[in-house]
Structures are given as structure tokens and as C-alpha cells.
């Protein structure tokens, strides 16, 4: 979400389907996308997952940066 959309390959309005190897973690996914900045990740709507959380096939992952202003 937000500025991170630029990191997604073949993004359609900020959404893309990624092919990851089995037992890939959130950290692996961010590595693959070359996202180096501090982000918040929600898996299937749950924001409490850490970087070592193992993703499953079909998971919906939201990645966003926090900005508390505007």
C-alpha cells in the first residue's frame, strides 16, 4: 500500500500475485520485493504477524508504511 506499490511487479492498483517457495516467511517476501524500509505487514487482516511468520498458499498480505500525520 502507499508508496510501496512501486516495489510490486506487474501491479494492478497496488495488487499483485507473488510466487514464493514453500515455507517462505514475510522477511523472504520483503527480500524478494527488495523492500528494505520499515513496514507493517498484515496477513489475512491480522497485523500481529512478525517477520518470521511463514506464509501459506493463498494468503493475502498487506504491506504498508505508517505515517501519523498529514
Amino acid at each position: 500500500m502507499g508508496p510501496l506499490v512501486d516495489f510490486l511487479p506487474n501491479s494492478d492498483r497496488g495488487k499483485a500475485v507473488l510466487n514464493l517457495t514453500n515455507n517462505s516467511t514475510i522477511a523472504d517476501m520483503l527480500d524478494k520485493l527488495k523492500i528494505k524500509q520499515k513496514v507493517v505487514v498484515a496477513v489475512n487482516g491480522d497485523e500481529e504477524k512478525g517477520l518470521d511468520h511463514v506464509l501459506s498458499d493463498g494468503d493475502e498480505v498487506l504491506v504498508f508504511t505508517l505515517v501519523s500525520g498529514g
Partner: protein
Amino acid sequence: MTYGYTGKILHVNLTKGELEIEEPDEQFYRTYMGGSAMGMHYVLKETPAGVDPFSPDNVLALCTGILTGTPISGQSRLTSVAKSPLTDCIGDAQGGGYFPAEMKFSGFDAVIIKGRSPKPVYLWMHHGEAELRDAGHLWGLKTGDAEDKLKEELDDKRIEVLQIGPAGENLVRFSALISMSNRANGRTGMGAVMGSKNLKAVVVRGKMKPVIANPEKFKEMQKLAKVNMEPTGMDGFGKYGTPGVCSPQHRAGGLPTYNFNSGNFDKHEEIDGHKLYNEHLRGHEKDDQNRFGRDTCFSCTVKCKRVSEVVEGPFKTDAKYGGPEYETLATFGSYCGISDMDAIIHANALCNMYGMDTISCGATIAWAMECWEEGKLTLEDTGGIELNYGNAEAMVKITEMIAHREGFGEILAEGSKKASEIIGRGTEEYLITSKGQEAPAHMPQVKRSLSVIYAANPFGADHESSEHDPGYKAYPERMKEIGLTNPQEKLALNKEMMRFAMITQHLSSAVDSISVCAFVFGASFQLYTPEQLVQAINAVMGWNVDMEEILEVGERRLNMLRAFNSREGVGRESDTLPKKMFKRPLKGGRSDGYFINEEEWEAALEDYYRLCDWDVDTGHPSLKKMESLGLGWVVADNNELSKVIN
């Protein structure tokens, strides 16, 4: 030799046309550091208790800070404080651009303004000198036109102008101070205070650059901006600006929609930063927005400001009036159920050319729209305008009418709370105000610590007065720097979250006193960490301040604001949230069904008071707290205050 600051404060008495220069000692600058705290020193000393916000006796302070004008990101900020005509409590608003740095270069750290000029004037500060000049020919002009005229008349294109527009002249209660025709000290009606004084503008120019105590260390701090840019994600923030958070806010269920009745806006992509960047920023046809569509403040590498234009159609808009921030996209957009980007860009430009706060303006219109939808307003009230949600033409028309106090705009120019008192008919049920100030676009139902900050903040609901809940868990290293090591679960409203709210409020309060940017210095996503703010101050000033001293500056300023309200007889009874946040669960999206439990919230408010050392029954600061912050004089000098603070 003074470092950082000029050592000169300009006092202006507009009634008498007299100007005086004060030269405070170094201890004064170390105690307040500038900005809001410095301004409050004068407001508390010189404004009589119970003053009418439009009285000549209401003191308006415009203050830079100790870092302003040094070549580092995020330092060109100016804070304005005075009693607010919107809230009848203390008012406070920050703004950036090039004006703050140029004011420092003109040879002054701050201007303290009192009285009322018998005719319109502007204040011309340049090269260490200052004078009042006739502004009769500028009165009534849009900000862009007045700025052009001043550049011509002073024969200098490099002047910077902080001014009111026609809305400030018309005493619209949420009028802003505008510089560069597109930067605003937006909130709490500081433009109306300046208008009541017949002061059209403050114009500055100079070459007196602040001296830096430790140039080597300062250079290191400058280089850190580059190092920090990618890992903090501030490069992406600069590219898409604050509008980049529209869609993420919607996804989290926190994009205020239909006057705060939902956190879910189906058309969020239509008002998001991507759409703005790709289709509306200047230069988008050549994919060269970076060059033509982004702008910045003096010496800031983040470059987050938008330059948007509408080249044709009913909402044709000149790029000189800038582009909408996230708050503006929300208030004129999702708050009103509007997804027409051209209309929002146009309403933003109207606010900048007439000089109004986009948050209060958009939110006041959204409140009127809900009143209309609920059948509390009729065509007779609105002068024939249908105010249904989603009506972009009506939103733009009403914005213009407010600036001119024309027709129904006359009532809305009072702000939504005062307007509800005029209209009656139960319209107060739909308010989203705290202390009479309309809530910005971050939802306390979703980020719970904001429920207490919005209520207890001395100048009304504000989103820049503390860090927001998700930041606690997401930025553990930075939070540790300010003593926060125990992040809580989502939606928690317990003692630890109140500690988080208060300590980050002290840091934000220090940021508003040092007068630096809340996107560049802070405890979560910002470019520099809190410790790096300490290092930057020491590099510029040659001091040895630590984090504790910085947080104390913030706490000092917060208690000065609070004491001002106490003196006005304003205490705990005003620390409230809009009724709808307790009574009406949100509808739709991730936050469907969310509301704030009033009992839990009251307990949290009391926890917060205890942490602040404020009286739980009255909400006033304790004498012990005031004295420990070196503010005993505030109580001793004010009879009204010594009656309530003990």
C-alpha cells in the same frame, strides 16, 4: 556570539504603531527553545484573562525555533499561538515553507503582536530592521495576488510573505495564515486573529544566516538524512506525500467517511496519493512530476509537498495554490463522500487563496451534509443548495461562500460547533469536534490513544500532538529512546497506552517548540530519530542537552497551554469527545462496529491526568508540576490561575 538564534524578539503594538526589540538571554532560549513554548511565554505574560479572541488585547505570537534557518531537513517551521476564536481556548498552529527560515535571516526569532491597527497594515522585517506599512491596497486580495503585489512594490522576488486572505479579513473562525500562497498555519483560526488586528501580512527578507557551533558535527547530521532516507521509507513518502496514506487508512478501517460515521470509503483509490501523483501533479503528462509536481521547504530533502493543477473544466485550478495533503483529501473527500479529485484540488486551492484551514472547512461542510441527510437542514437554510453527501459542486460552492461569509456560508464560517448552536434542532448530535475544533482524519475509534489526546489536547482535536497507536509496536528501537518498551495490543486503552500517549505528546510538544517538522523528527516513521534531534540541537547550539531535557521542554509547553485554558476557566468538562464516537458504532470495512466505550475511556482519561500530574477532578495542572517545570511565575502572576491551581 549567539548560535542558532538571532537573539532578537520583535514586539509590535499595532494600536500605537510602535515597534520594540527585546534581546533575551541564552537561558530564555534554552528554557523554551522557540516555537509554541516561546510564544506561550508571551501570551501568558501579556494576554489578560478572559480576553475576547478578536480584542486588540489578544496577543498573537509568531515564533521560529533554535534550528530554523540552519541547512538541515525539517527545520523551516513557524508556530503561531494566541487565544483561538474557534475554540475560545488557546490556539496553536504550525506551518512550513520558506517563510520561517527567511524570517530568521531577516534578523528576528519571533514577532509578538498586540493591539489593533486603525487601518490595514503589513509588517516589513528586513536585514535587522522592521517597519509597519500601509496595506489598504492589499486588503481584499487573494493571497496569490497580494504576494505578487508585494514582490513588485518591494522590488524583490525573494521576499517571503505570511498573510491572511479575505477569509481572515472576514473573521472566518478557522482562517489560516498562508505563505507561498500554498503553505498554512492552518488550525485554530490564527488568520482570524491577525485579521482582527488589521494586519494583512508579515513580509520578510534577509541574509543573516544562523551561526552553527559545531560545523563538523552538523555536517554529519546533514549526511544522515541521505543514510536514513531509504530505511525509513521517507523517499517513498516524499514521492507520494501524505496523500499516499489514503488507501492504507481505508484498509485499516480508519479513513473517516460520511462525517466520521464509517472508516471505509469504497472510492478510496479515487482520492489516493497514487491517483494524485499519476494524473494530477504538474508534469504528469511527461512523467516528470519529480521536477514539476513536488515542492519542499527551505533545505528539506524530503520534498513531500504537492503541486497539482486542473487545466480545464469547472474546477480549473492554478498550480500556484499547491496541492492537497492527506487531511484535505479526507475532509473534502471521504468526510463528504466525494471522490472527484478535481473538486478536492479546487477546494484546497480556494482555502489557500482565501486563507482557510482545509481540515475545519471540509469537516464543517461534512457536518452540514450529515445534518442535511438527517433532515435537519432544508433548502431554506442553505439558500437553495442541496447538501447531500457526494455533491462536489455544492462542496466547492459552499467553500467559496464561507470565505466571503455569504448566505449559508455566514453560519458555517463560525465553525461547526458554533453553527450548531445557532441552528439548534439537534444538529449538535452530528458534531465531530473536541473543544469546538473539527477532528482531523485519524480515527480515535481505530487508534484508541488518540481518543484521549483529541479530548485533552488544550487546542482541540489534533493528530500531530502525539504518535499514533501502531507506531508503538512498529518502531521499538525508536520508542526505547523515549522510555517506551512495552507495546500493547491493538485497540488497548490502558495505563501503558496512556504512558505512550503522554510521552509521545511531550516529544511532539518539544518538536512544536523547537519548531521542527513532525515528518522529519520523531519516534516512529520520521527521517531522524529522537536522539538525532538531540544531536542536531547540540551541533547547532553547542549545548549538551539530553533526551530528558527535550521531553521536559515539551512538557513545559503542554502545561503552559493547559494553564492558559485553566485561567479561562476551562478544565476537565471540556476534555470530551464527540458524542457519536461513544454512541454510534462505525459502519463497514475493517472497523465495522467499532466505538469507544465511555466508561473505559473515562478511566483512561483519569490515568492520563494522573500521569500528567493534573487534578483528576478539575483537569488543571498541579502547582507542584508547574513549579517543577519552572512555571511557578505563571500561577503567581495570574490571580485567576492561583484560584484554581494549587
